């Protein structure tokens, strides 16, 4: 088979010492930027574009691929240990992962995240090797109504399972939705909720809200409770490795997360966030340990971490096969290809086979490298929690502020960080879930654009939302998610003939 010979040639390229070196540089940098709040792979590769003048294309792309994968690995570390995700794709990991860390099982959470990332990255890379052309076709199959239905599904499923109180969950979600409408409406150019502040015209930067709600809110909360809390529990109480039980509970979520991440990552309007939402929801509903969710369930770490890494592999599919950049990172990679006078697309596999297969082979190598880099480090990273908390959280505060300032150089963003940070603190004090705010902020604007596109194409006919098989199925599933739990509860209450207080999960 062509792909196999190509891949073998690719390995002979990727395993050359200098290319191994570039893969190491890329994965190391990727891990570092994943850990740092605010700085993502797109920005890093953009900053490194000028090096394309000096190093040969294969080496550059091997390094860039390492950055892309590494960022997804690194994002999980701070999510789990410090409850401060550096990237939006790592947000769901924080929910269960940080609870695990607080029980002294941080190392196990880091391990399942690292191995899950490796499994998903490897399966995703296998997907690029053998399935790229058909997966890339998804980009053409998805119509606005399909995107809208997918986002509706992500929305409903994640809101239904979030938090301990529906009312609090929905309040948080609507906070996020209202933050999401701020800015100039791209379809009409009208300003919404900008109050004449030019910095708000571009909308509320998602990273600002992410970092403020988690990092600043967490820091304030820890500071305010510091005097009352028991001294630190030994962060290594749960050992530095996964138990047999952990393995048993992790492998299925890894595979399911990959199944969500890879195809959705390949969609032009997919991204890494939606698959992590869906994966978290699915793990939460399939688990045999529902009581652990919200208190540190390993499935809730394994699934989303696999999903975000598979999504990172997914974005390379339309780029390599069709020359279509479907995300900011892919767009920068395309610019890098053009710097070398290469046009990604079907012809790239023929004209520059060495480069493409070298890149694909280096994805396997980079993945393995990340695993080797991260597994032994898991035990080391956890020791971060031995740092006395005043120093640790002062450090987090500084890194967050520098990260946000470095990205936008905007005073408005810093002021917003303070405001949203206080909001995050208040939400913690009154037991509001944090994640729905970000889900609303991420999905709201995406869903709005797709809904309006679908309605424009359908000339205002609402039936357009179920006009394709895919959208009809997704809308039906969304409706079931909304109706079935309510129906079950209604039947239960009728049988028992008294209100069931505990069912409102």
């Amino acid at each position, binding site marked *: 088979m062509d792909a196999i010979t190509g891949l073998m040639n690719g390995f002979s390229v990727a395993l050359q010492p200098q290319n191994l070196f570039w893969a190491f540089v890329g994965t190391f940098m990727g891990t570092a930027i994943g850990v740092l709040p605010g700085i993502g792979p797109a920005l890093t590769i953009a900053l490194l574009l000028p090096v394309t003048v000096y190093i040969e294309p294969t080496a550059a792309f091997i390094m860039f691929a390492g950055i892309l994968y590494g960022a997804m690995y690194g994002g999980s570390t701070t999510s789990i240990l410090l409850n401060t995700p550096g990237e939006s794709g790592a947000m769901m990991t924080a929910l269960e992962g940080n609870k695990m860390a607080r029980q002294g099982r941080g190392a196990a959470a880091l391990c399942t995240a690292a191995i899950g990332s490796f499994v998903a990255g490897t399966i995703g890379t296998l997907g690029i090797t053998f399935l790229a052309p058909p997966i890339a076709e998804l980009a053409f199959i998805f119509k606005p109504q399909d995107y809208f239905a997918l986002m509706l599904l992500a929305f409903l499923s994640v809101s239904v399972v979030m938090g301990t109180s529906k009312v609090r969950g929905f309040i948080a979600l609507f906070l996020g939705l209202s933050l999401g409408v701020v800015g100039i409406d791209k379809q009409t150019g009208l300003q919404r909720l900008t109050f004449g502040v030019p910095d708000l015209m571009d909308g509320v930067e998602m990273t600002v809200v992410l970092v403020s709600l988690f990092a600043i809110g967490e820091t304030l909360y820890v500071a305010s409770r510091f005097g009352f809390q028991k001294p630190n529990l030994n962060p290594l109480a749960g050992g530095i490795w996964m138990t047999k039980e952990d393995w048993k509970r992790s492998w299925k979520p890894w595979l399911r997360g990959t199944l969500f991440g890879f195809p959705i990552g390949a969609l032009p309007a997919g991204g890494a966030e939606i698959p992590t939402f869906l994966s978290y929801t699915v793990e939460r509903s399939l688990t045999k340990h529902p009581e652990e969710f919200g208190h540190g369930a390993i499935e809730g770490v394994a699934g989303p971490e696999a999903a975000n890494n598979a999504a990172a592999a997914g974005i390379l599919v339309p780029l390599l096969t069709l020359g279509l950049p479907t995300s900011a990172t892919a767009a920068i990679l*395309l610019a890098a290809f053009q710097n070398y006078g290469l046009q990604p697309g079907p012809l790239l596999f023929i004209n520059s086979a060495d480069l493409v297969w070298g890149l694909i082979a280096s994805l396997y190598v980079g993945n393995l490298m990340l695993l080797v880099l991260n597994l032994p480090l898991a035990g080391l990273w956890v020791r971060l929690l031995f740092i006395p908390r005043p120093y640790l959280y002062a450090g987090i505060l500084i890194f967050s502020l520098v990260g946000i300032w470095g990205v936008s150089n905007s005073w408005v963003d810093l002021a917003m960080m303070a405001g949203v940070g206080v909001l995050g603190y208040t939400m913690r004090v009154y037991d509001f879930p944090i994640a729905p705010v970000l889900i609303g902020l991420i999905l709201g604007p995406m869903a709005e654009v797709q809904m309006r596109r679908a309605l424009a194409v359908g000339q205002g006919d609402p039936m357009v939302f179920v006009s394709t098989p895919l959208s009809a199925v997704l809308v039906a599933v969304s409706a079931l998610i909304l109706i079935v739990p309510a129906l079950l509860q209604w039947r239960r209450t009728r049988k028992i003939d008294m209100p069931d207080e505990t069912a409102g999960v």
Partner: protein
Amino acid sequence: MIKAVFAAALAFSLSAAAPALADPAVVMAPGGAGGGYDAMARLPFEAMSKEGIFTDGATFTNKGGAGGTIGLAEFIGANRGNDNAVMSMGVILVGGILLNSSPVTLDDVTPLVRLTNDTGVVAVATDSPIKTVDDLVNAMKENLGAVSIGGGSAGGVDHIVMALIAKESGLEPARLNYIPYDSGAEAVTALGGGAVSVAVSGVSEFKPMADAGRIRIIAVTSEGRVEGIDAPSLKEAGLNVVVGNWRGIVGAPDMSAEGRTMWLDRFAKMHDSAAWKDILVKQGWEDAYLAGDDFVAFLNDEKTRIGEILKEAGLTK
């Protein structure tokens, strides 16, 4: 030549108005990474650095949205009087300012050069019943709303092309079913997958997909035909519509005369360099170099022309 540049740089470093010698340029691209404004911001600096014309490096900011006015506002707000700050821009920004009633305009910045032009193309899906410009006009006449049109931001150059086609065909441009997309990649997948019936974008964005047999180009928006594309210009097809998506560079508001001369000098050198010619070929850009006062005059004409088009087309009041 290197000596001359060095001497010039030294002279500037001695004069109080000039930026510090090793200051990297502050460059704004009022569009997302990987897009046209992004390339127009980065590639000239790549060429200048390769040729040793300007080697202090540059920090790039991408700020897209609302036809580029968000980036423009930020550029103007942050860089007044900064001789080291430039921004990529183009015809879409000229329209975007009018459409978004932007509080800041191009009167606030210092025009420097026009560098390139990208001809537009009108395309349909390969299996579309629309095969020619006549078919398109007839379909629009039959039911204007049923012809959904994908393209760049609302009121951008793609939108203007369709508005002019409608106007030339005696239809009301304000009633076009125009659906803005964030990127050419999104628009081309929407068209190839049949989500929209027709799409407008630049040659460089649509030609690879047309060559791959995914979409069919039915017209180009230049005066005459474009080499390598088997489609007439709109003018040949009987519609008096010629629109070019030109791009260039402007300097910071209140840039000093020395600063302006310095940049014009750099761009003039860059335009003659081999590195820039190489980039033009690689990117498939048409050279449309126009500098200094000529560019200012052109920009003023363009502002009037586009203002009229948009008003006639019912896109602005």
